Protein backbone atom coordinates (compact mmCIF):
# COMPACT_ATOMS: atom_id res chain seq x y z
CA UNK A 1 0.00 0.00 0.00
CA UNK A 2 2.92 2.34 -0.69
CA UNK A 3 2.05 3.88 -4.04
CA UNK A 4 -0.62 6.57 -4.15
CA UNK A 5 -3.84 5.87 -6.02
CA UNK A 6 -3.78 6.69 -9.70
CA UNK A 7 -5.64 9.87 -10.62
CA UNK A 8 -7.72 10.50 -13.72
CA UNK A 9 -8.92 13.65 -15.49
CA UNK A 10 -11.88 13.62 -17.85
CA UNK A 11 -11.87 16.39 -20.47
CA UNK A 12 -15.15 18.18 -21.11
CA UNK A 13 -15.79 19.87 -24.46
CA UNK A 14 -19.06 21.52 -25.38
CA UNK A 15 -20.87 18.53 -26.86
CA UNK A 16 -19.14 15.81 -24.84
CA UNK A 17 -21.84 13.45 -23.64
CA UNK A 18 -19.99 10.48 -22.17
CA UNK A 19 -17.99 12.62 -19.76
CA UNK A 20 -20.03 11.65 -16.72
CA UNK A 21 -20.18 8.00 -17.80
CA UNK A 22 -16.38 8.02 -17.83
CA UNK A 23 -16.32 9.84 -14.48
CA UNK A 24 -18.71 7.29 -12.99
CA UNK A 25 -16.67 4.34 -14.25
CA UNK A 26 -13.39 5.77 -12.96
CA UNK A 27 -14.55 7.35 -9.71
CA UNK A 28 -17.29 4.99 -8.56
CA UNK A 29 -16.55 1.68 -10.27
CA UNK A 30 -12.75 1.77 -10.31
CA UNK A 31 -12.68 3.82 -7.13
CA UNK A 32 -9.92 6.21 -8.19
CA UNK A 33 -9.68 9.99 -7.66
CA UNK A 34 -11.09 11.63 -10.79
CA UNK A 35 -11.51 15.28 -11.78
CA UNK A 36 -13.26 16.97 -14.66
CA UNK A 37 -11.05 19.12 -16.91
CA UNK A 38 -12.64 22.01 -18.81
CA UNK A 39 -11.54 22.50 -22.43
CA UNK A 40 -10.81 26.21 -21.91
CA UNK A 41 -8.47 25.65 -18.98
CA UNK A 42 -4.71 25.34 -19.25
CA UNK A 43 -4.18 23.06 -16.28
CA UNK A 44 -4.27 19.26 -16.19
CA UNK A 45 -4.31 19.41 -12.39
CA UNK A 46 -1.58 16.85 -11.96
CA UNK A 47 -3.56 13.81 -13.10
CA UNK A 48 -1.79 10.58 -14.09
CA UNK A 49 -4.09 9.93 -17.03
CA UNK A 50 -6.18 12.18 -19.27
CA UNK A 51 -9.36 10.65 -20.67
CA UNK A 52 -10.98 12.19 -23.76
CA UNK A 53 -14.58 10.99 -23.57
CA UNK A 54 -17.14 10.22 -26.24
CA UNK A 55 -19.66 12.66 -27.61
CA UNK A 56 -19.74 15.31 -30.27
CA UNK A 57 -17.12 17.90 -29.31
CA UNK A 58 -18.05 21.29 -30.74
CA UNK A 59 -20.95 19.55 -32.47
CA UNK A 60 -18.44 17.71 -34.68
CA UNK A 61 -18.85 20.64 -37.05
CA UNK A 62 -16.39 20.72 -39.94
CA UNK A 63 -15.15 17.18 -39.21
CA UNK A 64 -15.27 14.91 -36.19
CA UNK A 65 -12.75 16.16 -33.64
CA UNK A 66 -11.51 18.91 -35.94
CA UNK A 67 -12.36 21.95 -33.81
CA UNK A 68 -11.72 20.32 -30.44
CA UNK A 69 -8.04 19.95 -31.20
CA UNK A 70 -7.57 23.73 -31.16
CA UNK A 71 -8.95 24.18 -27.63
CA UNK A 72 -6.52 25.53 -25.01
CA UNK A 73 -6.57 22.38 -22.89
CA UNK A 74 -5.66 20.19 -25.88
CA UNK A 75 -2.36 22.06 -26.24
CA UNK A 76 -1.62 20.96 -22.66
CA UNK A 77 -2.73 17.42 -23.46
CA UNK A 78 -0.40 17.36 -26.46
CA UNK A 79 2.57 18.44 -24.31
CA UNK A 80 1.52 15.98 -21.58
CA UNK A 81 1.39 13.12 -24.09
CA UNK A 82 4.72 14.04 -25.67
CA UNK A 83 6.26 13.96 -22.18
CA UNK A 84 4.98 10.41 -21.70
CA UNK A 85 1.69 11.11 -19.91
CA UNK A 86 -1.03 8.52 -20.40
CA UNK A 87 -3.91 9.58 -22.63
CA UNK A 88 -6.98 7.48 -23.40
CA UNK A 89 -9.32 8.61 -26.20
CA UNK A 90 -12.72 6.94 -26.35
CA UNK A 91 -14.82 7.23 -29.54
CA UNK A 92 -14.99 11.00 -30.15
CA UNK A 93 -11.89 11.24 -27.97
CA UNK A 94 -10.12 8.88 -30.40
CA UNK A 95 -11.21 11.11 -33.27
CA UNK A 96 -9.79 14.15 -31.48
CA UNK A 97 -6.45 12.34 -30.96
CA UNK A 98 -6.29 11.63 -34.70
CA UNK A 99 -7.00 15.27 -35.56
CA UNK A 100 -4.48 16.39 -32.98
CA UNK A 101 -1.86 14.17 -34.60
CA UNK A 102 -1.12 12.19 -31.45
CA UNK A 103 -2.26 9.08 -33.31
CA UNK A 104 -1.91 8.39 -37.05
CA UNK A 105 -4.78 8.10 -39.52
CA UNK A 106 -8.28 9.53 -39.88
CA UNK A 107 -11.90 8.49 -39.57
CA UNK A 108 -14.31 8.09 -42.46
CA UNK A 109 -18.05 7.65 -42.30
CA UNK A 110 -19.12 4.07 -41.51
CA UNK A 111 -19.14 1.92 -44.64
CA UNK A 112 -22.93 1.55 -44.70
CA UNK A 113 -23.52 5.23 -43.84
CA UNK A 114 -25.38 4.28 -40.67
CA UNK A 115 -24.94 5.43 -37.11
CA UNK A 116 -24.02 2.19 -35.34
CA UNK A 117 -25.10 1.68 -31.73
CA UNK A 118 -24.56 -1.92 -30.65
CA UNK A 119 -22.35 -4.30 -28.73
CA UNK A 120 -19.33 -5.51 -30.67
CA UNK A 121 -16.46 -7.86 -29.95
CA UNK A 122 -12.87 -6.69 -30.07
CA UNK A 123 -9.75 -8.82 -29.83
CA UNK A 124 -6.77 -7.80 -27.74
CA UNK A 125 -3.84 -7.87 -30.18
CA UNK A 126 -1.21 -6.90 -27.63
CA UNK A 127 -1.52 -7.47 -23.89
CA UNK A 128 1.75 -5.76 -22.99
CA UNK A 129 0.50 -2.18 -23.28
CA UNK A 130 -0.41 0.04 -20.34
CA UNK A 131 -4.00 -0.20 -21.56
CA UNK A 132 -4.23 -3.99 -21.87
CA UNK A 133 -1.87 -5.55 -19.35
CA UNK A 134 -4.80 -6.90 -17.31
CA UNK A 135 -5.93 -8.81 -20.41
CA UNK A 136 -4.52 -11.77 -22.29
CA UNK A 137 -3.36 -11.61 -25.88
CA UNK A 138 -6.21 -12.82 -28.08
CA UNK A 139 -8.81 -12.18 -25.37
CA UNK A 140 -12.19 -11.12 -26.75
CA UNK A 141 -13.92 -8.16 -25.08
CA UNK A 142 -17.59 -7.36 -25.54
CA UNK A 143 -18.01 -3.58 -25.52
CA UNK A 144 -20.58 -1.29 -27.18
CA UNK A 145 -19.92 1.16 -29.98
CA UNK A 146 -22.00 4.27 -30.82
CA UNK A 147 -20.66 6.23 -33.77
CA UNK A 148 -21.20 7.50 -37.29
CA UNK A 149 -17.55 8.00 -38.19
CA UNK A 150 -15.57 5.00 -37.00
CA UNK A 151 -14.31 3.70 -40.32
CA UNK A 152 -10.59 3.90 -39.61
CA UNK A 153 -8.36 4.92 -42.48
CA UNK A 154 -4.62 5.38 -42.80
CA UNK A 155 -2.53 5.78 -45.96
CA UNK A 156 -0.73 2.53 -46.98
CA UNK A 157 2.62 3.55 -45.53
CA UNK A 158 1.10 4.64 -42.20
CA UNK A 159 -0.84 1.38 -41.98
CA UNK A 160 2.33 -0.60 -42.68
CA UNK A 161 4.13 1.26 -39.89
CA UNK A 162 1.24 0.62 -37.48
CA UNK A 163 1.33 -3.11 -38.15
CA UNK A 164 5.11 -3.34 -38.16
CA UNK A 165 5.38 -1.55 -34.81
CA UNK A 166 2.55 -3.54 -33.28
CA UNK A 167 0.46 -0.43 -32.66
CA UNK A 168 -2.87 -2.07 -33.48
CA UNK A 169 -4.15 -2.93 -30.01
CA UNK A 170 -7.77 -3.91 -30.77
CA UNK A 171 -9.49 -5.36 -33.84
CA UNK A 172 -13.17 -6.01 -34.44
CA UNK A 173 -13.87 -9.73 -34.36
CA UNK A 174 -16.69 -12.19 -33.84
CA UNK A 175 -17.55 -13.77 -30.48
CA UNK A 176 -14.87 -16.44 -31.05
CA UNK A 177 -12.15 -13.92 -31.81
CA UNK A 178 -12.11 -14.40 -35.60
CA UNK A 179 -11.56 -11.20 -37.58
CA UNK A 180 -14.18 -11.40 -40.32
CA UNK A 181 -15.59 -8.87 -42.79
CA UNK A 182 -18.97 -9.27 -41.10
CA UNK A 183 -17.61 -8.45 -37.65
CA UNK A 184 -15.90 -5.34 -38.98
CA UNK A 185 -19.16 -3.42 -38.79
CA UNK A 186 -17.91 0.04 -39.75
CA UNK A 187 -15.51 -1.07 -42.49
CA UNK A 188 -12.31 -0.03 -40.73
CA UNK A 189 -9.04 -0.70 -42.50
CA UNK A 190 -7.54 -3.96 -41.16
CA UNK A 191 -10.56 -4.15 -38.80
CA UNK A 192 -8.85 -1.62 -36.55
CA UNK A 193 -10.85 -0.74 -33.43
CA UNK A 194 -8.04 0.79 -31.37
CA UNK A 195 -4.43 1.88 -31.82
CA UNK A 196 -1.63 3.22 -29.67
CA UNK A 197 1.18 5.63 -30.44
CA UNK A 198 4.69 4.43 -30.97
CA UNK A 199 5.76 5.17 -27.38
CA UNK A 200 2.72 3.35 -26.01
CA UNK A 201 1.35 6.06 -23.71
CA UNK A 202 -1.52 7.19 -25.95
CA UNK A 203 -4.41 4.92 -26.96
CA UNK A 204 -7.57 5.59 -28.93
CA UNK A 205 -10.46 3.18 -29.43
CA UNK A 206 -13.95 3.49 -30.87
CA UNK A 207 -15.78 1.13 -28.43
CA UNK A 208 -16.88 2.59 -25.08
CA UNK A 209 -15.26 0.72 -22.14
CA UNK A 210 -17.04 3.03 -19.67
CA UNK A 211 -20.36 1.66 -20.92
CA UNK A 212 -19.23 -1.88 -20.17
CA UNK A 213 -17.77 -1.49 -16.70
CA UNK A 214 -20.56 -3.00 -14.59
CA UNK A 215 -22.55 -6.22 -14.82
CA UNK A 216 -25.80 -4.25 -14.72
CA UNK A 217 -24.81 -2.74 -18.08
CA UNK A 218 -24.54 -6.16 -19.69
CA UNK A 219 -20.76 -6.44 -19.73
CA UNK A 220 -17.84 -5.75 -17.44
CA UNK A 221 -15.21 -6.24 -20.13
CA UNK A 222 -14.50 -2.52 -20.37
CA UNK A 223 -13.02 -2.57 -16.88
CA UNK A 224 -10.04 -4.47 -18.25
CA UNK A 225 -8.76 -1.28 -19.88
CA UNK A 226 -9.14 0.81 -16.73
CA UNK A 227 -7.64 -1.96 -14.60
CA UNK A 228 -4.68 -2.15 -16.95
CA UNK A 229 -4.08 1.60 -16.67
CA UNK A 230 -4.25 1.47 -12.89
CA UNK A 231 -1.91 -1.51 -12.83
CA UNK A 232 0.56 0.35 -15.05
CA UNK A 233 0.76 3.29 -12.63
CA UNK A 234 0.25 1.68 -9.21
CA UNK A 235 2.41 -1.30 -10.15
CA UNK A 236 0.67 -3.92 -8.09
CA UNK A 237 -1.97 -6.47 -8.84
CA UNK A 238 -5.41 -5.21 -7.99
CA UNK A 239 -6.55 -7.98 -5.67
CA UNK A 240 -9.98 -8.15 -4.19
CA UNK A 241 -8.54 -7.22 -0.82
CA UNK A 242 -6.97 -3.95 -2.00
CA UNK A 243 -10.12 -3.15 -3.90
CA UNK A 244 -12.16 -3.58 -0.75
CA UNK A 245 -9.68 -1.68 1.36
CA UNK A 246 -9.96 1.23 -1.01
CA UNK A 247 -13.73 1.18 -1.14
CA UNK A 248 -15.34 4.32 0.19
CA UNK A 249 -17.00 4.04 3.58
Amino acid sequence: MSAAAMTFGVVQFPGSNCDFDAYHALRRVMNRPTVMLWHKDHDLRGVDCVVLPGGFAYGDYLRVGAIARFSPLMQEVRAFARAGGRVLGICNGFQVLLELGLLPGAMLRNKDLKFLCQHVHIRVEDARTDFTRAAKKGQVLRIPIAHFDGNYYAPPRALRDLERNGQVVFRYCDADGAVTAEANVNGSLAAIAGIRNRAGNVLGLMPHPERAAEAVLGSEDGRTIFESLILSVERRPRTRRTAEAKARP
Partner: protein
Amino acid sequence: MRVRILVSFKDSVLDPQGQTVKNALHTLGYDAVRDVRQGKVFELELEGATRKEAEALVPEIARRVLANPIIEKFDWEILKGR
Protein backbone atom coordinates in the same frame (compact mmCIF):
# COMPACT_ATOMS: atom_id res chain seq x y z
CA MET B 1 -12.33 39.69 -51.20
CA ARG B 2 -14.47 36.62 -51.33
CA VAL B 3 -12.90 33.22 -51.94
CA ARG B 4 -14.41 29.79 -52.38
CA ILE B 5 -12.65 26.68 -51.09
CA LEU B 6 -13.66 23.22 -52.22
CA VAL B 7 -12.67 20.30 -49.97
CA SER B 8 -13.12 16.74 -51.22
CA PHE B 9 -11.75 13.28 -50.56
CA LYS B 10 -8.48 12.33 -52.20
CA ASP B 11 -8.92 9.98 -55.16
CA SER B 12 -7.27 7.20 -53.14
CA VAL B 13 -9.91 7.43 -50.39
CA LEU B 14 -13.24 5.69 -50.77
CA ASP B 15 -16.18 8.11 -50.61
CA PRO B 16 -19.19 6.11 -49.42
CA GLN B 17 -21.52 9.12 -49.62
CA GLY B 18 -20.52 9.81 -53.22
CA GLN B 19 -21.06 6.10 -54.01
CA THR B 20 -24.56 6.23 -52.55
CA VAL B 21 -25.42 9.32 -54.61
CA LYS B 22 -24.06 7.60 -57.70
CA ASN B 23 -26.22 4.52 -57.04
CA ALA B 24 -29.28 6.74 -56.60
CA LEU B 25 -28.56 8.51 -59.90
CA HIS B 26 -28.27 5.15 -61.65
CA THR B 27 -31.57 4.06 -60.14
CA LEU B 28 -33.12 7.19 -61.64
CA GLY B 29 -31.75 6.23 -65.05
CA TYR B 30 -28.81 8.63 -65.28
CA ASP B 31 -26.56 5.94 -66.68
CA ALA B 32 -24.11 8.48 -68.07
CA VAL B 33 -22.86 9.22 -64.54
CA ARG B 34 -19.67 7.25 -64.11
CA ASP B 35 -18.62 8.47 -60.70
CA VAL B 36 -19.64 10.90 -57.95
CA ARG B 37 -17.38 12.51 -55.38
CA GLN B 38 -18.96 14.49 -52.59
CA GLY B 39 -17.24 17.44 -50.93
CA LYS B 40 -17.68 20.60 -48.90
CA VAL B 41 -17.73 24.22 -50.02
CA PHE B 42 -16.53 27.12 -47.85
CA GLU B 43 -16.90 30.76 -48.83
CA LEU B 44 -14.63 33.13 -46.92
CA GLU B 45 -14.90 36.90 -46.84
CA LEU B 46 -11.39 38.28 -46.38
CA GLU B 47 -10.90 41.74 -44.94
CA GLY B 48 -8.58 43.94 -46.98
CA ALA B 49 -6.46 41.08 -48.35
CA THR B 50 -4.52 41.49 -51.56
CA ARG B 51 -4.38 38.68 -54.08
CA LYS B 52 -0.83 37.90 -52.98
CA GLU B 53 -1.85 37.74 -49.32
CA ALA B 54 -4.80 35.54 -50.17
CA GLU B 55 -2.52 33.17 -52.05
CA ALA B 56 -0.58 32.60 -48.82
CA LEU B 57 -3.48 32.75 -46.39
CA VAL B 58 -6.12 30.58 -48.06
CA PRO B 59 -4.00 27.45 -48.58
CA GLU B 60 -2.76 27.76 -45.00
CA ILE B 61 -6.31 27.90 -43.65
CA ALA B 62 -7.38 25.04 -45.90
CA ARG B 63 -4.48 22.80 -44.92
CA ARG B 64 -4.54 23.60 -41.23
CA VAL B 65 -8.27 23.66 -40.54
CA LEU B 66 -10.75 23.10 -43.36
CA ALA B 67 -9.27 19.93 -44.82
CA ASN B 68 -7.69 16.91 -43.18
CA PRO B 69 -4.65 16.34 -45.44
CA ILE B 70 -4.63 12.63 -44.61
CA ILE B 71 -7.91 12.03 -46.45
CA GLU B 72 -8.85 15.28 -48.19
CA LYS B 73 -7.61 17.66 -50.88
CA PHE B 74 -8.71 21.19 -51.65
CA ASP B 75 -9.07 23.70 -54.49
CA TRP B 76 -9.82 27.36 -54.19
CA GLU B 77 -10.69 30.38 -56.30
CA ILE B 78 -11.34 34.08 -55.90
CA LEU B 79 -15.02 34.89 -56.40
CA LYS B 80 -14.95 38.65 -55.93
CA GLY B 81 -12.31 41.31 -55.43
CA ARG B 82 -8.79 41.71 -56.71
